C-alpha cells in the first residue's frame, strides 16, 4: 500500500483557480534546459499547476536517505482517468492537447506492456557520498526540496540547478552552524 507521507498534511493549501499558476504550453521542447526524458513529464504541470506535493510521488524522502521515484502504479492512479490535455490553458489549442495526450498515452502503453520508462538521472552523487534526504527534510521542512533542486515547480523539463559539489554542501552547513565532520557524509 502506498502510505501518503506527512508532506500531504503539511502541504500548501490548494489555491483558488484564479491565483493558480498555469504551466505554459511548450511548443518546442528542444530549447529546454536539462536532459531529454523518455516521456516529456512536466514537473511544472504536476507540482506547479496542480500543486501535487513533491512527496506524493517521491514518497520516501521524509523517511529514507533515498527520495524514491514513483512506480508506474502511482502514475496510473491518476492517469487511469486523466488522459491529459484537459487543463485550463491548453483546452483551446488542439495541437497542444494532442501533444499532451500523446505523452499520457505513452505512459499508459508502458504500464500495459509492463515496460517502465528509463528516466535519465539528473541529480547523482558519487559513490563515496551519503546524502540522507530525511535529515534535511526533518531540519528544513517539507518544502525544502527547492533549496537544492531549485524551482522544480516551474520547470517544464528538470535540470540540475546546484553544483552538488562539496563546497556547495559545506557552505550551507557553515551558514546553518551544523556539522562539517567528514564522516557524516563520507563512509
Amino acid at each position, binding site marked *: 500500500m502506498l502510505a501518503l507521507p506527512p508532506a500531504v498534511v503539511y502541504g500548501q493549501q490548494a489555491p483558488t483557480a484564479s491565483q493558480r499558476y498555469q504551466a505554459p504550453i511548450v511548443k518546442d521542447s528542444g530549447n529546454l534546459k536539462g536532459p531529454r526524458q523518455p516521456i516529456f513529464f512536466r514537473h511544472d504541470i504536476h507540482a506547479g499547476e496542480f500543486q501535487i506535493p513533491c512527496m506524493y510521488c517521491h514518497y520516501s524522502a521524509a523517511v529514507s536517505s533515498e527520495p524514491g521515484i514513483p512506480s508506474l502504479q502511482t502514475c496510473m492512479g491518476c492517469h487511469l482517468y486523466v488522459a491529459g490535455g484537459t487543463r485550463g490553458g491548453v483546452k483551446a489549442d488542439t495541437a497542444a492537447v494532442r501533444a499532451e495526450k500523446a505523452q499520457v498515452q505513452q505512459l499508459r502503453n508502458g504500464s500495459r506492456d509492463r515496460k517502465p520508462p528509463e528516466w535519465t538521472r539528473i541529480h547523482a552523487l558519487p*559513490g563515496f557520498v551519503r546524502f540522507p534526504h530525511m535529515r534535511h527534510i526533518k531540519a528544513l521542512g517539507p518544502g525544502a526540496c527547492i533549496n537544492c533542486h531549485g524551482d522544480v515547480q516551474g520547470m517544464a523539463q528538470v535540470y540540475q540547478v546546484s553544483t552538488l559539489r562539496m563546497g556547495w554542501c559545506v557552505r550551507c552547513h557553515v551558514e546553518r552552524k551544523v556539522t*562539517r*565532520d567528514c564522516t557524516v557524509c563520507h563512509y
Partner: protein
Amino acid sequence: MTDSINRRRFLKVLGVTGAGAAAVSACGIGPEPTERLIPYLVQPEDQIPGKATYYATTCRECAAGCGVVARVREGRAVKLEGNPESPINRGRLCARGQAAIQGLYNPDRVPHPMVRNASGTFEAIDWDGAIQRLSAKVAEARGKGIVFVTGTDVSTFGDLVDEWLKQVGGRRYSYEPFGFDALRAGNRTTFGTGSVPSYDFANAKYVLSFGADFLDTWLSPVEFQNGFTDAHAFDGGRPAAMAKFVYVGPRLSLTGMNADEWIAARPGTEGILALAMAQVILSQHLARVPADASRLVALLSGYAPRAVATAIGIEQETIVRLAREFARSGGGLAVAGGMATQYANGAEVVAAVNILNYVTGAVGSLVKFGADMAFGTASTFGDFVTLQDDMKAGRVALLLMHGANPAHSLPGAFEEALGKVAYKVSFSSYMDETAAACDLILPDHHPLEQWGDSRPRAGVTAFQQPVVQPVFDTRQTGDVILRLAGRTGTFKDYVQGKWGGLQTRGRGAAANTADQFVFDSLAKGGVYGEAPSRPVRLADVSKLTFAAPAASAAASQQQVIVFPHPVLHDGRGANKPWLQELPDPVSKIAWHSWVEVHPDTAAKWGVATGDFLVLGSPFGAEKFPAWITRSVRPDVLAVPTGQGHTAYGRYAKDRSANAFALLGKQQANAYGGRDFLVTATARKTGEHRKIVTTEGSPRERGLGTVEVLGVARAKSLRPNDHPFHFEETPEYASPAVEWWSEQQREKTELGNYKGEHPRWGLAIDLSKCTGCAACVTACYAENNIATVGEDLMQRGREMSWMRLERYWLTDDKGEPQGAVNSPMLCQQCGNAPCEPVCPVFAAYHTPDGLNGQVYNRCVGTRYCSNNCPYKVRYFNWYNYAERDGKYEAWPEPLSMLLNPDVTVREKGVMEKCTFCVQRIRGAQNQARLEDRSVRDGDIVTACQQTCPSEAIVFGDLNDRRSRVSQLATNPRGYHVLAGLNTKPAITYLARVVAQETPGHG
C-alpha cells in the same frame, strides 16, 4: 509479506555503490547524467528505497537450524544476522551462517536445468523438458530401485520426499559426512535409545569434552557456544562462574584451544579415561550416585587409574584429580564427540562417557533426552556403504541427490558406484563433484530463495521463507517432487498447510485461523516449543568391553587424523571466498589445507613448516604442506578436510588436496560408522610452499597485547583495582605528553569539536571470546571488504579489518594448554599515531572520537599504516571491484551482496575498521527523526551482533550508564600497548584461566 515475493524487483540504480558513473563531464556542473532510473511497475508494499527490510528465515548451512534475519535492500539480500527469537542461536550467528549469502549470489551456481547429451557434456534444457524426462525415468525405474539421497533433512521437504518415495517404491538415505553414528550407537548400548540428546552447557559447572568440538563443528555450535560462555566466562551468566573446561583429544581444535587444561590422551583411550574417572568417583564416593549405579562397580573395577594410566599416556594422579574436580563441581557435563567418536571404538568411548555422566547425575539434567536433535535420524555410514554396494551391483536404477556431495567426501568409492547407476539426477544448486557426475541437473533454489523448514530438535520448527527473487532459472525441488507425484499446488502451499497443523489448540485461547498463525510464526521465524524430557535408565552394561587400541605398528607408520575444517567443514564452504580467506582459527592458515606435525616429529624427519609431506594410507595418498605446532600429539598427524575439490566452482576447484582421499573406500566399522583415524606412511617430497598464514607469532612474548589472570587473582579484584598499568608514561616523556594534551584540549574548543559529543568505544571480553571468527566474516559482509585471493594473501595483502590473534598459553613444560584469542581491529585511538602523519588529512579525528578515514581524500601514501602500532590499516593494492579484473572480488552476481551504505574502495586507498560508522549514522538519523537522542544499545556493530559468545559490546564511553563504559572501568580492563599513550577506545577485559600461574611468555 508472503505474496509480495514475486513482486519484489531488483532495482539496480537505487543504492548505487562504487564510483557511480565515471564519465567525464564536459559541460560544467555535476556528473554526466548517464545513469538510468528505472521505476517499479508496482510499488512493493514492504520496501522503501534506502531502507532495509528484514525477513526471518532459517540458516541451512548446517543442520543446526539457526534462525536468521535477512537484511534486504532494494530486493537484494545484503546481510544475514541471527534471529533473537530463535531458541537455538538466540540472535547470534557463526562464520558459516554469515557466508550463506555468498552461496546465494555465488557466480558458479547452476543457472538453469542441464542434461548430459550424447557426447557426454552438459547442455541446457528447459524446465518442462527436464521434468518430463525425469518422470519418464521414474516410470522406467519403478521396481528396479529408486534411491533418494538427501542431507540431514528433518523437515517438511524430507517428509514430502518420503511420501513420494512410498508412492513410487523407493527409499531415502540421508548423508552426513561427519555423522553421529558412534554417538547413537553408544547411547543405544547404555540407554537403549539411538537418539541424540540436547546438552545444556549454560548450566554446567565443569565441562569435560572428549573430542567434542562443540564450539565449531559438533551438533549445534552457535547454541553451544552461547551456553558455554555463560558457564565458562569469568562473569558470564553468574558472577565469577568460570566453569572449568578440560579438553581430551589428540589435537587442539578451535574448541580445544579454549580449554583451561588439555589432556592429550592417546587416540582411542578417551573412553578408558572416562571409565577410570567414574571408577574414582564411585570408589571414593565423590558424588551422590544414582541407586542403580552400584551395578557398575564390577565393570569399573578393571579401570582403576593405576591400571590404565600408562595406556592413556597420562599420570594416574591426573586422573584422580580430574575425577575429584569433575564430581565436586556439582554440575559436571561430559560430552563425547568429534575425533573421539570417529575411531573404530567410537561407540565404546560414547558409552564410557555416558557412564561417567550417569554416575554424576548429569543425565536428565544437563544431558536431556526428549528434546532430541535431528541428527539422530540420519542414515549411518554403514547404511551408505550398503547403498554403494547396491549401486555397484546394479540394484539402483535411478539415483536422485539433494543437499549432499558424497562424491567429494567418499572419493573413489562413491564415484565408482555412481558409474553403475543407470540414471543419476542431482538437485544441487552448484556444480559440485556429485552433480558433475550426474545425467540430469535440476538446480534447486538457494535456501534464501525457497520455502521450507527445519526441525533441528524436537519441539522446534524453524521456518524458511524466500527473502529475494530467485537469482537464476532454478526451481524449488519441493515443487518438482509435487509435480512428479502428480499433485496439484505448490510446495509453498504444502509446507504452509503443514505449518497450520502446528498450532496448539485449547486452554481457551482465541482460536486463530491457520493462516494468521502461519503468518505470525513466520515473523518470528518458526514455532518454538519445548519437548518434554524423557527419562532414561542405564541399560545392562556389564557385558561391554572397552579395549585400549593397539599401539601403532611400524616406526615409519603414523596415525593420521582427518578432522572437519571449522569453517569449510566437509568442503561445502569451499566455494565461498569469505570462508576461504578466513584463516583457520587454530592454524591461521587460509586458502589451502595443511598437515599438523609436532615439532619433535618434525625435527626427527627434518621437516619445516611449508615442506610437503605425502601421506599414504591403505586407501589413497595425498600431499599436504606441513604446519609445525605443539597443539598436536607427537605420534599423530592431523589433516583438515574442506579443500581438494575437483569441481564446485572457481573458489574451490583444484585447490590443495582432499583429505578424504586418505579414507577412501573404507568399509563401515563395528558400530556402522566411519573411521577418521588411519595409519599412514609419511614421506617428504622435497617440495616446499610458503603457507598462507596470518599468524605473526605463536606467543605473545609479554608485550601486553593480551593479558591473562588466574581465576583466584581475578576473583580477588575489587572494583577500583587496576592490575594492568594502563596509560603508563615513562618519566622522561611526561612533559611532552602533558604539553600535547594541553594542545589537544585547546583544539576541542574549535568549530565542530566544541560542545558535547559521544566517544564511541568497544569492550571486548577475552574470557568470553573463543576465537570462532564469526566477527571477521560479519565484518567482511557488512563493510564490503574485498577478498584478495591466495596469491595476494600470501604476500600479506589481506583486507580483514578485524583479525583474530591467537596466542598459546603454555604450562610449565612449555606445552600448550589452550590459547587466548584476541580480536584485533582499529583501536580508534584518542591520540592516534595515524592521524598527524597523513599529508592530506584523509586520516583525521572526528568529533565523536573515531579515527576517520576519508577515502576520496586518501592519496595512498600509506604513512598512516606505517605509523600504526596495531597494524590494523589495510591498503588497496588493486582495484578489487574492477569488472573482470585480475583480482576481482565480486564477480557477477556476487556484487549483489554489497552493502549500499558502505563505499566500495578503489585502488590506492587505505581502509580500516570504522566502528561500523554507517550504523552509527543510521541510528543517529533515526533518532533525529524520532526527536530523541541515541540510546545505549541502538547501535550494534556487525561484529557485536554476530558474536556467539557475546564478547563484544559497543557504546558511548561518555555516557556513564552505558554498558560499555561500565565494562571499560572493569578491573580486568586494559588497553593494548597502553604505554604508547595512544588512548584507545577499545578496552579489552583480561582472559581468566583456571590454572593459577598462567604462562604466555
